[in-house]
C-alpha cells in the first residue's frame, strides 16, 4: 500500500462488515439549520430510518420537505444536531471514522456533471479512488468497472475531455466517478433532473441494472412518480421535515388524497383509481401501471354490460 504513511489506510476496521448484512440506520435524527439564531428551523425532525442491504428505495417529497438534507446525512456531509447515523453499528460521525464513510456511502448530487473538472474522463473518474488511498492498479480496475457500470465505452471515452461529451454522457461520467469508489450504498439525488424522457429511461434502467446485477443498495430521490412506481421496492415520503410515510409503492400511491395534500403528484393511473373509488366504484386503489388500470376498468365497464 503506497500511501499508508501519509495517513490513508485502505483497509480500515471501522465500518467494515465482512460478509455480514449491511445496514444504514438513522436514529432520531434532527437537523437544525442556523441553530441559536432567530432564524433557526428544523430541516429534519426526529427521523428514524433503516436502509438494509440490497434495497431499492425512493425518497419523495415536495421541494423543501427535507429530502436533500436527509441524503446528506447518509454519508456524513451533514451531521445531526440530535440523534445518530449508524453504518453497520458504528456512528459515522465519530472522529475516528473521518471521511471513510463517504467511500462506503456514495452520493451523487443533482446535475452531477457540474462537478467534472479533470482533463480526461479517466482522470476524473480516478479522483474518488485516489482520494481514498487506493493504489494505481486498484484505481485502474475501479475506473474500468465504474465506466462500464455507468454504460460508457471505456476505449471511446477514457482519454477524451469530459467537456467534449454530450450532456447524457457527462452525467454518466459523473456517476462513474462515485461508482469508482465501489460504495456499498449508492444514493442519487434526482438522477433524471433535466433529462428528456429517453435520457431518463436510460439512466433509470442503468441504475436498475446495477441493483439487479451487482446487488448495490440504491436510494434515489425523485419527482417522477412514474419512475418511482416502476422501480422502487420501498418509498419514503418526506413532508415538512418529517418522515411521514414508508411503504411499498402500492401502499403509498393508494393514498392519493394524502399525497396531494402534501403537494405531491401521483401517477395518472393512480389518480384515476383514487377518483373512481371516491365515486363509489369498486376498483383496486393500488394500481401502478397502465396495464393494471386497464384490467380494473374492464372489470367495471364489462360489469355493467353484463348486468
Amino acid at each position, binding site marked *: 500500500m503506497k500511501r499508508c504513511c501519509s495517513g490513508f489506510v485502505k483497509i480500515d476496521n471501522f465500518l467494515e462488515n465482512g460478509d455480514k448484512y449491511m445496514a444504514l440506520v438513522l436514529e432520531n435524527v434532527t437537523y437544525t439549520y442556523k441553530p441559536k439564531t432567530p432564524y433557526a428551523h428544523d430541516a429534519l425532525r426526529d427521523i428514524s430510518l433503516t436502509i438494509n442491504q440490497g434495497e431499492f428505495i425512493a425518497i419523495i417529497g415536495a421541494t423543501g420537505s427535507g429530502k436533500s438534507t436527509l441524503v446528506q446525512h447518509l454519508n456524513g456531509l451533514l451531521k445531526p444536531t440530535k440523534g445518530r447515523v449508524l453504518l453497520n453499528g458504528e456512528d459515522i460521525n465519530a472522529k475516528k471514522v473521518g471521511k471513510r464513510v463517504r467511500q462506503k456511502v456514495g452520493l451523487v448530487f443533482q446535475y452531477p456533471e457540474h462537478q467534472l473538472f479533470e482533463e480526461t474522463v479517466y482522470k476524473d473518474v480516478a479522483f474518488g479512488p485516489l482520494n481514498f488511498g487506493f493504489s494505481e492498479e486498484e484505481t485502474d480496475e475501479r475506473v474500468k468497472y465504474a465506466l462500464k457500470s455507468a454504460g460508457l465505452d471505456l476505449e471511446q471515452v477514457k482519454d477524451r475531455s469530459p467537456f467534449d461529451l454530450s450532456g447524457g454522457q457527462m452525467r454518466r461520467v459523473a456517476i462513474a466517478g462515485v461508482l469508482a469508489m465501489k460504495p456499498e450504498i449508492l444514493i442519487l439525488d434526482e438522477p433524471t433532473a433535466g433529462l428528456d424522457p429517453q435520457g431518463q429511461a436510460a439512466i433509470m434502467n442503468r441504475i436498475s441494472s446495477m441493483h439487479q446485477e451487482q446487488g448495490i443498495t440504491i436510494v434515489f430521490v425523485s419527482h417522477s412518480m412514474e419512475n418511482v412506481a416502476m422501480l422502487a421496492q420501498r418509498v419514503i415520503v418526506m413532508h415538512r421535515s418529517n418522515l411521514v410515510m414508508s411503504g411499498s409503492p402500492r401502499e403509498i400511491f393508494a393514498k392519493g388524497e394524502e399525497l396531494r395534500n402534501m403537494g405531491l403528484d401521483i401517477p*395518472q393511473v393512480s389518480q384515476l383509481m383514487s*377518483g373512481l373509488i371516491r365515486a363509489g366504484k369498486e376498483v383496486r386503489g393500488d394500481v401502478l401501471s397502465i396495464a393494471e388500470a386497464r384490467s380494473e376498468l374492464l372489470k367495471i365497464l364489462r360489469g355493467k354490460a353484463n348486468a
Partner: protein
Amino acid sequence: MIKIDNLWHKYRRGGEEIKALKGVNLSIEPGQFVVVLGHNGSGKSTLAKHLNGLLLPTSGKVYIDGLDTEDEELIWEIRQKAGMVFQNPDNQLVATVVEEDIAFGPENLGLPPETIRSRVDEALKAVGMEEFRYFAPHLLSGGQKQRVAIAGIVAMRPSILVLDEPTAMLDPQGRAEVMSTITKLNKEETLTVVHITHFMEEAINADRIIVMEQGNIVMEGSPQEVFLKIDQLRKLRLDAPQMVQLANLLRKEGFPIPNEIMSVEEMLQWVCENR
C-alpha cells in the same frame, strides 16, 4: 404571423457537418398555442432560436410578422415582437431586484421612465408575482424565477412568446406554475405561444402539436390527432400521456371512448357516465 420556409441549419462541429434542421416548413397563426415536442437533438431548440434571429438560416427563410430575420436593420424589431424565455431560470435574470430585472427589456427599448414603470406593474400582475416585486432573484424558487423571466418579456409587449424548454429544470410545482402562466397569457392577452418541451403532458391543452425528430417535422396536428398515433409516437420513443394510452387500450376492447379524452378528470367523468 410566423412563417418558416424550407429552413435548413447546418454547422460544423469537430470537423463534421451537423444538419440541425433539414428543410422545415411551418406557419403559425396569431393567437395559437403551439407545442413543439421532441428529444434532445431533434432540432426543436435550434428551431426556437431562429424565431428571434439568435440563429440565422443556412438556407431558407424565417419571417416574423412579415419581417425577414436575416435583415440586420430589423433584428431588434423582431426581437421585441418575438420574446424568448430560456431553460435555465437563473441565467436570464440580470438585476438584483425583481422589478428592476423586469424593467431591463423596456429600458433597452428606450421607453420613457413612467411607461417602463407601468409596463413593469402590468407584467408583474400578468404573471402573478406582485408580492415579489422587491425580492432578490436568488431568494426565489425555480418556478418563480421563470415567471419573472416571462414577466421581463411580457413587459416588452411582444406578440409572440417563445419558450425554449422553460420547465426542464423545474420541479412539478414550478412546472405547473409556468404552464398555468403561459396558458393564461395565451388566453387572456392573446399572445401567440410557441412552447418547446419534452414533457407530453404540457401539450394536452395546445391548439397544435408539432413533433420533431432529427431536424424534421415528423408529426403535426391537434393533440387528439397526434396522441392517437400511439404506435408512431412509440417509434419516436415518445409516450402519449397515460390517460391517452389507457383510452386507446380500452378502445381496442370495443369501448367507444371519445378522442378528446386526455386528462384524468375527463376519463373519470366518462367512466362514471358509462358504467
